């Protein structure tokens, strides 16, 4: 029995040994493959150079070597995210040819873009004429930190008649966001670090509002932004926000302002902005905020130090009421005071104007020396009639609805340039949209713009009926067919198609515009 048992044991060992050898032989190629790609620790394979996709950067400060392309130890927590927005409009402005019409010319002329006073950096901006825009957000992160890279364009090459590098920005933002929920009890901290924008004075509930203009200011630069929220009991929320940003560089001395460089001005110094904000929220229904921002430049390289240092100080206050079935209401007041601001670059945008030079071009005047003040009040109210009438039943927007919006803005300018001093500007409008079918809605918008209340000839009105197609009630897409008619005063001035465009009082604006805009957001 023992011999038989030993024989079985030997036979079993033999089979196991052979099986082991067989499995070992089978696994040899796999081991060899693994040896080429990665060792058991997950470290990259040893090679004589760096892989082609390795970032072309030095070691990070502190000597940390980023393990690019390697799996994180807590890989399962990390995820990739992709969001975006695009709107691409076909636009045509209709007009009659001025002067003699030859036999091989048409009397009717078609303009793209339309020749109308609708410029984002001017007070006359209504956003009635849709602008091309595409943005792709790529994010990777976990519950604590997320890296985001944004590719942005205000153009599409296939539809462009010339190459405008500033409109094809490429990577416009690249930043990290840290979410720190448990530093202090009943608090939440969010920290943004990198290159990004902050916007304050936002009239819409989820967007920049009907005028597409951050009423207090927008910052653009590299730096940080800390948002701290503290729960004060069960009903109140204290919101404290701070940020410092600077520009990555300044325009080189000797550069000639041109379209390809975004009309870079070597006389503008490298700009910085510091901003502080405090707000109190009540049960998610109301938020009152106070805002302080100062942007400045103190750069001796700006025109060999002969340009005075400039600054733009901004104070703002806003009230937002998110009243559920009673709608959304927003009111804001802002005061921007510029002192020799011509040397302040695009680190800050006041009413969509870029830095001090933009303020001078659109509000303060060329002879202001960059000194002056803008006092602005604005408001917007949006109401869903369907939601109001169905209250207290919940309404998710998946049925016919009428949405009404009223909005307005007033700016008073004080300037060292007499021609621009003591000028009041007013614009207001109303829009009503009726969503009748899941795929069809209509809308009518009326705008009135008075760029100078002391000169009624500059005023104009716009009426814009629209037909809106989309894939469903709450779809994230729409195709809008729009007609707009301008009722222009005799003193309405539009810009020519120069480089850069300049106001030309001899041009007769288009009065009729048709557009077809495709938009989607995800």
């Amino acid at each position: 029995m023992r011999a038989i048992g030993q024989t079985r044991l030997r036979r079993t060992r033999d089979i196991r040994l052979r099986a082991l050898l067989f499995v070992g032989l089978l696994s040899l190629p796999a081991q060899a493959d693994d040896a080429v790609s990665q060792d058991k620790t997950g470290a990259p394979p040893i090679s004589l150079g760096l892989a082609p996709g390795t970032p072309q950067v030095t070691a990070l400060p502190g000597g940390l070597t980023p393990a690019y392309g390697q799996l994180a130890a807590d890989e399962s927590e990390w995820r990739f995210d992709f969001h975006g927005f695009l709107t691409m409009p076909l636009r045509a402005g209709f007009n009659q040819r001025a002067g003699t019409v030859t036999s091989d010319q048409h009397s009717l002329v078609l303009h793209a873009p339309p020749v109308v006073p609708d410029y984002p950096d001017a007070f006359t901006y209504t956003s009635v004429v849709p602008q091309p825009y595409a943005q792709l957000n790529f994010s990777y992160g976990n519950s604590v930190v997320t890296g985001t890279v944004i590719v942005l364009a205000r153009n599409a090459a296939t539809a462009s008649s010339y190459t405008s590098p500033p409109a094809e920005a490429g990577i416009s933002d690249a930043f990290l966001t840290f979410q720190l929920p448990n530093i202090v009890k009943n608090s939440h901290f969010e920290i943004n670090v990198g290159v990004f924008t902050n916007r304050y004075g936002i009239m819409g509930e989820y967007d920049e509002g009907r005028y597409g203009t951050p009423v207090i200011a927008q910052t653009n630069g590299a730096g940080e932004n800390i948002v701290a929220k503290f729960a004060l009991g069960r009903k109140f929320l204290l919101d404290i926000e701070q940020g410092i940003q600077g520009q990555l560089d300044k325009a080189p001395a000797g550069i000639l302002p041109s379209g390809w460089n975004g009309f870079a001005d070597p006389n503008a110094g490298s700009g910085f902005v510091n901003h502080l904000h405090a707000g109190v929220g009540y049960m998610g229904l109301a938020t009152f905020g106070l805002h302080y921002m100062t942007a400045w430049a103190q750069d001796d390289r700006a025109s060999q130090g002969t340009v005075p240092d400039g600054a733009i100080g901004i104070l703002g206050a806003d009230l937002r009421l998110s009243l559920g079935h009673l709608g959304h209401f927003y009111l804001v007041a802002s005061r921007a005071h510029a002192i020799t601001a011509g040397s302040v670059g695009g680190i800050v945008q006041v009413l969509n104007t870029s830095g001090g030079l933009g303020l001078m071009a659109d509000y303060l005047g060329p002879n202001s020396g960059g000194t002056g003040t803008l006092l602005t009040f604005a408001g917007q109210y949006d109401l869903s009639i369907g939601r109001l009438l169905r209250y207290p039943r919940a309404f998710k927007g998946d049925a016919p609805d009428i949405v009404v919006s009223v909005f307005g803005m007033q700016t008073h300018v004080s300037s060292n340039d007499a021609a621009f001093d003591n000028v009041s500007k007013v614009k207001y409008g109303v829009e009503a949209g009726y969503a009748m079918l899941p795929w069809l809605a209509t809308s009518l918008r009326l705008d009135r713009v008075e760029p100078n209340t002391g000169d009624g000839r500059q005023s104009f009105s716009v009426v814009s009926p629209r037909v809106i197609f989309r894939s469903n009630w709450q779809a994230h897409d729409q195709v809008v067919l729009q007609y707009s008619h301008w009722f222009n005063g005799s003193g309405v001035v539009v810009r020519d198609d120069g480089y850069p465009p300049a106001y030309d009082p001899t041009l007769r604006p288009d009065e009729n515009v048709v557009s077809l805009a495709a938009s989607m957001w995800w």
Partner: protein
Amino acid sequence: MTFEYGNNTVTSHVKLTTWKPAGAVDWTAVGSQNFVDEAYLTYQAITGGPLRLQMTAGAFRNIYGGLGQYSVGQYNAAIIGMPNGIGETLTAQYDLDETYTLHFEDGIMGRLGKAPATDVPTADNGGANPALPSSWVHHAHVGLVRKGEIPFVLGLHYIRNWAQDERSQVDVPNYYWIDTTHRPAPEMNVFGVDLRMLDNWLGNFAVAASYADAKDAELLTGMNFFGAYTGEQMTKRFLGPRGGGTAKMAIAGFEYALGWARFLQHPLPASGAGPDLTTSIFADAASVSSRDPDFDGRVMYKFGAEVTYRFFSWLAISGRADHVVPNSKDMAETFNVISPKVIFKSNWLSHEQVTLSYTRWFYGAHTHAEFPDDYTRGQLDNEMYALTFGMWF
């Protein structure tokens, strides 16, 4: 790179393209990096029944008269036209029965803007030309599709490219033959027909023809015609600069590609995962009636053949020969090209290839390059070695 997001009804598409990756350049060519080249939505508006309706809206391009199965063909020139711009294209399909389907298509496109008036065309601004008006394209098409083992598509096409824009009527020095201070309204009408036999065991075949009537077409943008991206290219290559692009042009082309393994194995199915011999023959021809006496009466044609044999999953060899007659009024411009290649792939049907090629040109005495690279006979290289990498996904 194309990024897409959507559902069964609507999908957004955003394309980032470049023809000059920054890592391999010594200078930045403005316009070589299209961070957003195309951005558009596609809708499947009506589906499921005999009538289907699709819409494309945004910034994109359409192609008509392409001769290749997945491309515009071996000569990279759509025979009928390729509108590009911002606008919409509506496509309706109606099933007459299980075999035949009618197609209707209509689109309109414009430009986002025009080059600024005070601009001077230079490399700094990608050659922005203030003399060019903002152009428009309207196109309409009707087609009949026959489904089945050997599918066919017959199409009739009409494309109108025009402008009526009075802005920036300034004197542009390099426009010798058009008075840009009293800029005429340019236009071009293209009528086309094509017949395609879609990929089956008999191969892939396409034949197309078009007739273009152009007036001052040098000022046009928004449509690629016979491989010319702009009206200026079209004029300097085909229509004649001295006529300012006023001319009539007739074009015809065909292409036939056959996979012999699939053909010989028929009716057995062929997976493509095995050795195969692929042959392709192709030709384009055009005649011009122009206001420019140098181009008037000119006939141009070219034809060629390519044979590719795949031995292994990772290796193929190929040979191509072309005969090109750019100008019937000067046969000394004629030239020939031969181009043997070795092709490496990771698998039979993989989506990448590395190609090592040698190309030899045999020039005529007057052969020269075309606008915008106006190299003379003496400046032309006659040999080229190339290692080309490609992947599609």
